[in-house]
């Protein structure tokens, strides 16, 4: 069985090691005997006919400006895919653009594609530091580094709650967002590296959608992941 993984804007939106998420998903599939084909989709490229998982990363403000036009053209297609249960993981800059808009420092409004009911506004301070959040999948640990503050709409579920960190905006205790199988988060690290349970949840959903039945993923030896996560949680902000 083959899983088709799309990395959206791998060059334009890739600043804090988020490529690692791709590597984690690929390897955890291969180690269990699945085939995986990765498609690097840049501005102007078409999505492959079969798409099981889409990932996107953080970028610089300049990177975001480069891709908003291209992203707008994909709005209807990505919204339909999200409704259809395709798994997506969007980090930082791409997470922001999966909301309604991002209001930049200069007052420019970068339009998003509204898969999440949320808005983001630039602020003068950067929210930086080690972060732990509790989610439906258990605790997840990573590192946040953003100056945009994200506010969820009244019916928009968060991905999790922050423990000792800032998360979406540093005020309401929320971190990230979730809509069916689409996840948004501010966590770098990269997020999937120290949270294999979260990586497997995404893989499980994607396999279930492709096969139409629940898939029991074979357990892997995750002791390095666990040790790294435990230690990261003990580090200062």
């Amino acid at each position, binding site marked *: 069985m083959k899983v088709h993984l799309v990395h959206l804007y791998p060059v334009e939106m890739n600043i*804090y*090691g988020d490529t690692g998420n791709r590597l984690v998903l690929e390897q955890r599939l291969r180690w269990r005997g699945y085939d995986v084909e990765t498609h690097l989709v840049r501005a102007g490229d078409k999505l492959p006919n079969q798409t099981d998982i889409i990932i996107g990363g953080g970028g610089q403000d300049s990177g975001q400006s480069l891709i908003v036009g291209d992203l707008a053209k994909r709005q209807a297609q990505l919204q339909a895919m999200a409704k259809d249960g395709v798994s997506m993981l969007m980090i930082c800059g791409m997470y922001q653009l999966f909301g309604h808009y991002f209001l930049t420092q200069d007052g420019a409004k970068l339009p998003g594609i509204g898969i999440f009911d949320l808005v983001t506004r630039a602020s003068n301070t950067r929210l930086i*530091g*080690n972060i732990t959040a509790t989610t439906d999948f258990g605790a997840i640990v990573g590192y946040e580094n953003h100056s945009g503050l994200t506010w969820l709409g009244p019916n928009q579920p968060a991905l999790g709650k922050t423990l000792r960190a800032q998360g979406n905006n540093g005020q309401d205790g929320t971190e990230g967002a979730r809509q069916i199988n689409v996840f948004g988060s501010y966590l770098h690290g990269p997020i999937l590296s120290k949270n294999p349970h979260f990586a497997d949840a995404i893989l499980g959903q994607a396999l279930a959608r492709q096969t139409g039945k629940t898939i029991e993923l074979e357990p892997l030896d995750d002791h390095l992941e666990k040790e790294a996560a435990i230690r*990261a949680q003990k*580090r200062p902000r």
Partner: protein
Amino acid sequence: MLNIVFIWFAKVLGWGLRATGHHGAALPGLIVEKLHPGFLDSMLHQLPEGVIVVSGTNGKTTTTKIITQLLRSQNRRVLTNKTGGNFVRGIFSTVAQAASLSAKLPYDMAVVELDEAYAARFVRLHRPRVSLVLNVTRDQLDRFGEIDTTAKLLQQVVNNTKELIVLNDDDNRAAAMTPPATARAAYFGISKNLTAQFPNDEQLYAQDKPRTLPHKREVELTKIVDSSATYKIGDQLYSVNLKMDGQHNALNAAAALGVLLGLYPRANTANLLKILSDIEPAFGRGELIDYRGRKLILQLIKNPASFRQALHVLDIHQPSVTAIVINDDYADGRDVSWLWDIDFEALSGVPKPILTSGVRAYDMALRLKYDQIAPQKVTPDIKQMLDVLEAQTTEGQTAIIYATYTAMLAVRRVLAKRTRVARV
């Protein structure tokens, strides 16, 4: 008169700190900076040949050392800041300690190494005669936020430079910087055939983006095989055997030569290259230490670009053991996500033991795991790592230790208890 008071104060405080076993660099500088901010400018104005600022992401310490030694070979009395004083207040301390008790600075010029943020602060206190921008790559984004922000800081340094700007012509962000009207620009770079060996940040992350059009270059590195480098200067080719390993140091030397030849176009080039061939690597930059009969090579790593470059050293030395020590203190960068921006393929072919250590030993091991590399030992305890390293090697064999900044200091502290380590 005020300067004299502060120099006495800083010297006495510095002596006191060192006598009680403290590092004497930062505190006196901190106090002088606060109480008498004009001190630095008035002192540095005494230098007849001015100040050279060395900045950029990677290669500052080595390049500063090379420039200093080349200038000294030209009979210049050169003041420079020692490792650890890589902040503005470190320069306050360096100046205060170097000044005579009557507030005279008995030097011709100064070469100061400053990171991007501190360089931008320094030029507001004192306008340098020369500034050198080595490169702009991703590093410590937990401090700087974005690479574009870093480039803006360096442009401020350039804007405040009086006479000469020396820029890396193969780094898109550095090459695009424009000198102020009163200054001129000189460029250094690599010839086209070496492009694949020296990818810049844009190429690493945006493979098909072309480099900016080249400028006329003062110095060009045209060939590098192991430690033998060839430079094109004017229309002449010069070959030199360096004591500093690695292609990145050959490029740092090109930058230093760019500064020297930019300042002194009539200097004897052959003579400069001879001096260059005798320069030893700086602290932790490929330093060689004899550790109980083993050849230990210490490589400082700071960010994806420097780690990637340092991995090339594996080919030259074929070590019996490779250790990687990752800390995440402020000086290392708190975010270790950057480890995922490096391809560790160079290590996957190595059948020899790999050890990971430091506060983030498990993060490093985890990164290697996803490149299908299994470390033989994972231990946050650096002493234990060195014990394993010793047990896994025999006398005469070579081991390489890659370490982040505070991890390197920790490794050296442990080594100093067990063997002779050169003082920093």
